[in-house]
Structure formats: structure tokens, C-alpha cells
């Protein structure tokens, strides 16, 4: 029990409980399952993208192009299927591959050319968003076949006790679990933590740091591609500014969830709780009728509080360890 409280995710989980309780008290529609599933649907793309971003941040890097790659992927679905008449499923695959390519380019530029992650992904962010705008002349596209649109609104179930689970939420859950498995059980996962903690040490112990980082960025790109496809299905149209602001939201979720920007620490569970906090915050404020601008304020405050809480905990732990040294396996926990 105490070890749960000590774990990194505890701060954000407590935050989640507090925010949830506040809104549940303020609005009787908040805790209804169909409202909560709605929030989950709205945030499923962000959740998917955040899985990849968590891995990138654990390697000590960062990717601010995620939102733009989501937008580009969503536009590609529209352009290929809506405008050029390609089969919708082929268009989706193509869009995801495009996302993968963007991620791989990021990874290559960062590893082989040794460009700082923030700069490389800044360039990719402008390029991908720009390409999305150019392809569509800044207009949105639609005209998707009904089967695709239906998928965006589809639900699985009924699941006893919960009702219908939206398909996009199910997809997000599957990817979250995939991410957890990769980080916890595969060599790649261990390599990601190692590369983040100390590149030198990782290299010396045989980890191919370049391959690990390339994997992290490419996987993120692929997930962004998927996110773009999911968004196109949900909205039944491709919007050129899809995903704008995602990068900041995703980084906020990852950091709130306990990952350190220096690398070597973090896990996906925390990130997803962070995404959940952001989702219920926006939803709750909307339900109460508070102007949307307050969300931005609260998010900023919560972000800083989360980091502060983490700092305090680290400080307390190191003080305690000075007195009672504990042998603990560093960092490897997804």
C-alpha cells in the first residue's frame, strides 16, 4: 500500500481523484457512463499519441511535431480517399505509413545528424503542418464512405455494467497495453530506459542507442498516423489544423504522469492518468458552463503543481535514503 503511494504515478492519480470528485459534486451529468465514454472518445487520439511520446521522453528526447503529424495523416486520408477516390482502407494505411515516415525522419535526423530533438521536431512540425495546409489549400475535406464514418462512431458491446465502449477508446486501450508491454517486457523497452538514464552506460552495456531512439520516434510517428486516421473517422472530415496544440497537451500529460524530461524515468500508466485528468477537466468545466479559458489556466497550474509534487517527493526520498539506504532497481517500471 505504501509503495503504491510512493510510486511516481500516485501524485497524478490523487490529482485525478480530486478533480473527479469536484466535478461529480458540481454536476450530476458528469459521472454518467455515457458522458465519461464521450470524454474518453474525445481524448482517445491524444492517448494514443501520448503512448509514443512517453517513450520518446524516457529516452531523454522530445517531439513537438506530434500534433502536426496527426494533422497531416488526417489530411492524407481526406486527400487520398475523398479527393482522389482511393479505397478508404488503403488511404488509411497510407496515412499511417506517412506518419511512420515522419517519425523515422525525426529519428534519423536526431540520431545520425545529431540535431537536438526540439529543433528537429520543430522543423518537422512546421513542415508537416505546412504540407497539410498546402495539400488542401487550407480547406477541410470530406466525402468519406459511410462504412468509414460508421467506424468513427462505432461502439463495442454491450459490456456488462459499462454499456457500449466506443471503438476508438478500445483501440486506445489496446495501444496503451501494447506500449506497457513493450516498455516492461522487451529488450527495446529496457534499452529505452537505459538510453535515457545514461547514453554512455547504455552503449557500454551493448544497447544500440541509435536503434532504440529511432524506434521510439518512428513508433510515435506511426501512432500519430493512427491518431490522424481515428480523428478523420470521428469527425467524418479532414481538418487541416487537426491536432494543433496536441504537442503541448501530450507533453503536459506525460510530465504530469511522472516522466522526467531528463530521461530514464517514466511510465505509460502515469501518462494515461494525465490524459484522463486533462479530459475530465475540460469536460467538467464545459458541463458547469465555465468559460473555456479557465481550462488553460487550471492546466498550467496543475502542470506546475505536478512537477512540484514530484520534486518534493524526490527530495523527501533522497533525505530518507541518506538515513536508510535502500537498494532499488533503477527506473525499470512500466
Amino acid at each position, binding site marked *: 500500500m505504501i509503495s503504491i503511494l510512493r510510486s511516481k504515478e500516485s501524485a497524478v492519480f490523487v490529482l485525478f481523484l480530486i478533480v473527479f470528485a469536484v466535478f461529480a459534486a458540481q454536476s450530476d451529468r458528469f459521472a454518467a457512463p455515457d458522458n465519461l465514454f464521450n470524454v474518453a472518445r474525445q481524448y482517445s487520439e491524444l492517448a494514443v499519441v501520448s503512448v509514443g511520446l512517453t517513450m520518446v521522453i524516457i529516452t531523454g528526447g*522530445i517531439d513537438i511535431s506530434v500534433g502536426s503529424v496527426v494533422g497531416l495523416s488526417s489530411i492524407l486520408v481526406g486527400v487520398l480517399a475523398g479527393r482522389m477516390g482511393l479505397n478508404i482502407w488503403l488511404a488509411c494505411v497510407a496515412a499511417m505509413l506517412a506518419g511512420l515516415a515522419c517519425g523515422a525522419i525525426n529519428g534519423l535526423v536526431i540520431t545520425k*545528424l*545529431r*540535431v*537536438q530533438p*526540439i*529543433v*528537429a521536431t*520543430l*522543423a*518537422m*512540425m*512546421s*513542415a*508537416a*503542418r*505546412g*504540407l497539410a*495546409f*498546402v495539400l488542401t*489549400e*487550407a480547406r477541410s475535406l470530406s466525402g468519406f464512405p459511410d462504412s468509414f464514418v460508421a467506424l468513427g462512431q462505432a461502439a463495442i458491446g454491450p459490456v456488462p455494467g459499462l454499456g457500449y465502449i466506443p471503438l476508438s477508446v478500445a483501440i486506445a486501450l489496446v495501444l496503451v497495453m501494447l506500449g506497457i508491454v513493450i516498455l516492461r517486457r522487451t529488450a527495446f523497452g529496457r534499452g529505452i530506459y537505459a538510453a535515457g538514464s545514461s547514453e554512455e552506460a547504455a552503449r557500454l552495456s551493448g544497447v544500440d542507442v541509435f536503434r532504440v531512439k529511432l524506434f521510439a520516434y518512428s513508433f510515435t510517428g506511426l501512432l500519430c498516423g493512427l491518431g490522424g486516421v481515428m480523428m478523420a473517422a470521428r469527425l467524418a472530415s479532414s481538418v487541416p489544423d487537426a491536432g494543433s496544440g496536441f504537442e*503541448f497537451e501530450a*507533453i*503536459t500529460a506525460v*510530465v504530469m504522469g511522472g516522466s522526467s*524530461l*531528463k530521461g530514464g524515468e517514466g511510465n505509460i500508466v502515469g501518462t494515461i492518468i494525465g490524459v484522463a485528468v486533462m479530459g475530465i477537466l475540460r469536460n467538467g468545466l464545459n458541463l458547469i458552463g465555465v468559460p473555456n*479559458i*479557465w*481550462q*488553460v*489556466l487550471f*492546466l*498550467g*497550474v496543475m*502542470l*506546475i503543481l505536478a*512537477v*512540484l509534487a514530484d*520534486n518534493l517527493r524526490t527530495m523527501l526520498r533522497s533525505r530518507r535514503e541518506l538515513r536508510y539506504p535502500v537498494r532499488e532497481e533503477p527506473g525499470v517500471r512500466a
Partner: protein
Amino acid sequence: MADTAARSAELRSSQETNRLAQLRELPALVFLGVIVCALWFREPNFGSSTNLLTTARDMAVVGIMGVGMTMVILTAGIDLSVASVLAFSAAVMGKMMLGGADIWLAVTAALGVGTACGALNALLITRLRIPPIIATLGTMGILRAGVTLYTHAKWIGPLPQRFYFVGTGCTPIILLAFVATACSIFLLRSRPGRYVHAVGGNEEAVRLSGVGVNRTKFIVYALNGLLASVAGLIMASSMSSAQSNMAMGYELNVIAAVVIGGTSIAGGQGSVLGTVIGAAIMAVLYNALILLEIPIYWHKVITGGVILTAVLVDKLRFFKRQ
């Protein structure tokens, strides 16, 4: 011991700045020259005084913020809140002006607010050990929300006529020149300025040698806030109003200008001059788009391309030296 370490850090950074000052900014300068010439040739209107002054104004807003951002990035930090600080300080000033306060009092208030916001960032980063990107991401949101609530999302204007001159004519570019020169001198010739380079290069070493790392960072972030509010003066004067959504998204333009100008995000290397050139490049590019009747949505792609090129050129030089 502390003294020699500090002195050697000084020596190293001043040597570096002297030796590299010539080289780092050269590619950016050449690029700027090329696009200006090409544009002037293709579109003679570019050279008209009004056009040049307007481009200069765009350049001044991004450039002044860029000077501050350069110093922050030199310490291996970053400040994402500059656009929100700009808007917030402009809003405070606007309300005071509309309330009948003396123009210069209002301007001073704006500058004070900007510096205070910068100081807040500094506190979060130095005392509370929050990573700069997170702290300033948080303050970016908080201040932007703050300005929207403070102005009740209404435009604050029109501002008094006597204030027009700040955002028009030669004033913006003069302000930029002044700010850039002053900060260059600070960075290259004063001791705290040289510490800025040193902190970015190797913070631990500097800390161990007894130099006040926290104090250096505090100066840099506070200055950045101040400069953001100066840029806000220009913008508010040009729009003759302060609005809650002004300068939305500008932080990325500023960072782009800094990167294009050759400053390294990892800290320790870079110059104000490079950033000014970077800001000029971005302003001229934007101007070119409209003069050449290129659809606006090409702007982002071109900006991304320029950033990437600048970074690659920089890397090329790095590899060549190896």
C-alpha cells in the same frame, strides 16, 4: 580556485565568441542577402520605404523577443511564455491608458509587468527546480488565461494618439537596434554576460566554481520578460489596441528565428546578431509571400524548410571541423 575556474570560463567563452563570431552568422547573413536581392529584383515594390518599414516592424517584434530568447537559450533554457507575457503586459498598459493614466506611466507599468513575469519564471526554474520547458509551458497557459479574464475578452482600445509613434515609422527598428546592441555588449563584455555563456556550456562546472548560477539565470529570464513587454509596446501601438489573443503562437516564431540565426538549443553557443538576422529572414520571407502572391498556406512549409536548412548547415560546419 573559484576565481581561476571562473576566469578560465570567461576566457573560453570570450575566445569562442571572438573566433566564431565571424563564422556562425555567416550562412544566415548570406541567405538573407540572397533572398533580399532576389525579392527586390523580382518585385521592385519591396524596396519602397513603407514596405521596408513594415517588414522592419515585423522583424523588430520577433527580433526583440528573440534577443531575450537568445540569452535564455544560451543558458540551455527555454521560455515558451513570451507571447503570453507580451499580451498580458500590453493589456495592463492598455487598461491604464484608457483609464486616463499618463502614457509613460502606463508604459513603465507594462515593462514592470513583463519583468515580473520573467522573474516568476526564473523563480520556478531556479528555486523550485522545475525544468524550463515545463515551467514556461505552465506560465504560458496561466498568463494567456489571465489576460483573457483580465480583459473580459474585450479589445482594449483605441489607444491614445500620442502612443502611435512607438509602433510606426522608424521607432520599432531603432528599438531593436538599441536592444540588440545593449544585450550584445552585456553578453560579450560584461562578467555576468560571460557567465551566461558559461552556464549554458557546463552548468555543473560553473556552479562548482562558485559562480552564482541562479543569479545569472534570474537576470536572463527577467530580461526576457522585459523584452517581451517591449515587443508588446510595438505591437499594441501598431494595432492601437491590446487584445487577449495578440501574438498567439509567436513563441515558436521567436524560437525559429533564434535557431535560424545559429544559436544552439543545447546552450553555450550563439549570438544576438544571429538572432536578429534570423528575425530578418522570417520577416522578409513573410513579406515575399504576399508580394509574390504565393498563397499564405505555403508559409509554414517554407519556414520549416528554412529552419531545417539552417540546422543542417550548422551541422555541416560541425562535421567539417571534426
